[in-house]
């Protein structure tokens, strides 16, 4: 019997409220109101609540926990993801996987936990005035959160999908490493993306948020932060719209929040959107600019043996080789990993339809997939995207893919095909609408060289949304300072992945945990000072 620690906590008297149940407008007073419960909001909530501050957490998605996690894509995607795991950029060119429930993306991510790479921090110091972001400065914060969330290099053997990345790379002399994961007593079943049914994943849902609630914090879920009210110097209140129990339609009721301090941690699309809806001062139009995605291209292979990519820890092997073959501000580099392969994610991601698609799906157990995550934001031709508002106020990310990024995408498709053939693939299908399964590397290479690189021809996905509220010392080029304090609004901080001035160049969760632990600790002492 697996304990559902969230259900137990709610039963035991946590102040966790479903806003869909509100029958009238309500007011809440607190010291700190945090919008969002993901990596940034969860980390901040624990630190602020432990410092004795009265914390309110606001989450747009539902509260779901281990006994709700049935490992079914048809349930998990609508319940736990933004836009049913089908969020798209404005031109529909990129599919974005982003969480939307208590715990945010940490509830559904694949547990890969990397410290911010030294070369990324160096770039930040040199270009954004983030002088206190030395490796040694941040190391204690990363160590603290690694300890808090039990981050360790994965100790069990990688599943075959990961193992084939390693084998193929090895044959080509490309080094790979083992991925550190935030799990405790992991069952190695492979369903991290649908919510961990065993509570092994040390997501915010089972760590910092329960801790904050134990310390008296209040949580409202199915509650969407609409806008701040601003008196010219300070935020005076936050208007929160309750959603109906379907999580889609707004309800008639609002929650008005009065706090000493407000924290935005709604993610790199949500946080800029709240700023834009609120019309807060933004003299240099920085809110929502330079949003990054690690645009990701994909290559599928059919192996002679069973791979069973739906089973086992989804990500345990990676290679940073192609992040290091050129300078960080040179041609775009990419990180290599593999994704889990469950039927919905796989069938919708594979290109083509009809008989060829069915044929590939029928070989599901033998399919191996590699992904290449392009490191965007370090070059003048990689300015990322812009968060806009639709007429109904919901956010939309406009992310044009530049020729600079497409160049990397093409190189990455080459690399992945090489690795897959080296690992023994019978056929390789680079995910491009013009592709067919190729039986030889030469045929794949010829085809990849000829692909028109354009949206909705090349499959591009993202699970890492970063930036849009950049931190920096210069208010002309950033939204918040190096501790996340808003440049123009005294009682507002941004504590999530939106503060990164570039992409991270690695799965971002540990960067968010560590840097937000630093910034939330500073905020706690400021508010208690």
């Amino acid at each position, binding site marked *: *019997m*697996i304990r559902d620690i969230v259900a137990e906590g709610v039963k035991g008297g946590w102040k966790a409220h479903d806003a869909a149940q509100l029958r009238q407008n309500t007011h809440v007073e607190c010291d700190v109101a945090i919008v969002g419960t993901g990596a940034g909001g969860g980390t901040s909530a624990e630190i602020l609540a432990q410092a004795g501050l009265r914390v309110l957490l606001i989450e747009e998605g539902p509260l779901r926990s281990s006994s709700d996690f*049935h*490992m*079914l*894509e*048809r349930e998990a*995607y*609508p319940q736990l993801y933004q*836009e*049913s795991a*089908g969020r798209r950029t404005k*031109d*529909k*060119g990129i599919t974005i996987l982003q969480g939307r429930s208590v715990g945010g993306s940490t509830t559904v991510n694949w547990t890969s936990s990397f410290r911010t790479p030294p070369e990324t921090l160096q770039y930040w110091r040199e270009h954004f005035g983030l002088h206190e972001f030395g490796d040694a400065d941040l190391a204690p914060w990363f160590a603290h959160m690694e300890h808090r969330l039990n981050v360790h290099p994965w100790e069990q053997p990688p599943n075959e999908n990961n193992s084939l990345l390693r084998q193929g790379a090895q044959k080509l002399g490309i080094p790979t490493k083992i991925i550190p994961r935030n799990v405790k007593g992991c*069952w190695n*079943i492979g*369903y991290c993306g649908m919510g961990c*049914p*065993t509570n092994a994943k040390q997501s915010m849902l089972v760590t910092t948020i329960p801790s904050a609630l134990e310390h008296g914090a209040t949580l409202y879920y199915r509650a969407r932060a609409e806008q701040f009210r601003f008196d010219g110097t300070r935020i005076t209140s936050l208007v929160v719209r309750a959603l109906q129990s*379907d999580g*889609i*339609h707004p309800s008639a009721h609002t929650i008005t929040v009065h706090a000493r301090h407000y924290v935005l941690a709604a993610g790199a699309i949500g946080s800029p959107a709240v700023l834009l809806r609120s019309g807060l001062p933004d003299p240099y139009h920085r809110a929502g600019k330079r949003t990054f995605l690690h645009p990701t291209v994909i290559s599928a292979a059919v192996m002679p043996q069973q791979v069973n990519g*739906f*089973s086992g820890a989804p990500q345990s092997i990676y290679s940073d080789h192609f992040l290091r073959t050129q300078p960080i501000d040179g041609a775009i580099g990419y990180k290599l990993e593999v994704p889990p392969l*469950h*039927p*919905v994610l*796989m*069938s*919708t991601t594979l290109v083509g*339809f*009809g*008989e*060829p*698609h*069915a*044929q590939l*799906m*029928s*070989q*599901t*157990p033998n399919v191996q997939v590699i992904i290449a995550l392009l490191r965007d934001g370090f070059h003048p031709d990689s300015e990322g995207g812009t968060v806009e508002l*639709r007429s*109904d106020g*919901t956010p939309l990310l406009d992310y044009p893919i530049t020729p600079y990024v497409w160049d990397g995408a093409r190189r990455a498709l080459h690399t992945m095909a090489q690795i897959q053939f080296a690992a023994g693939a019978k056929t390789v299908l680079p995910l491009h*609408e013009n592709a067919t399964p190729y039986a030889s590397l030469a045929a794949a290479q010829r085809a990849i060289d000829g692909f028109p690189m*354009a*949206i*909705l*021809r090349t499959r591009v996905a993202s699970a890492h949304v970063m930036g849009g509220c950049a931190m920096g010392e210069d208010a002309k080029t950033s939204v918040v300072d190096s501790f996340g304090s808003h440049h123009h609004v005294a009682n507002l901080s941004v504590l999530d992945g939106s503060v990164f001035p570039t992409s991270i160049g690695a799965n971002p969760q540990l960067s968010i945990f560590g840097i937000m632990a630093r910034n939330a600790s500073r905020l706690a002492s400021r508010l208690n000072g």
Partner: protein
Amino acid sequence: MITRRKLLLGGLAAAGALAAGDAVYRFSTDDDRVIVAAIAPVMIGADVPAQDVVRGFDVAVAGLPLAVQGEVHQLLGILRFPVTRALVAGIWHPWQNADRGEIAAFLERWRYSNVAQLRSAYDALHQLVLAAWYGNNVAWTAIGYAGPPHVA
């Protein structure tokens, strides 16, 4: 080889099942469901129980933000009105009577269109129909997926 007669019967059976089913649909209209039922076997590449796909499609769309639901409505509208169905999609028969070759040609045209909006409309159908089918347990045997393990 799928004959036109077989398709017609399949189409009728699907329409009958749709009418007879007591499912509660949150998003789609009867007309929408006929379109999805016609596209489903061509997109999926197999004879599939139309009602399962249609229901999955409805659930999937109902879980999208209202703005995106509006876009899907628009797309289904284009496919529904005879003039746009013929001129934009190139489907000259009502969906119940359209043969699979005609539907495949339509999907292929949108898939490779030079107009990005048509490619994105194809991609929306691709995503919704395939998710509706492969999210369903009944689809898993054919692809060698045993479903999630038992955890307790």
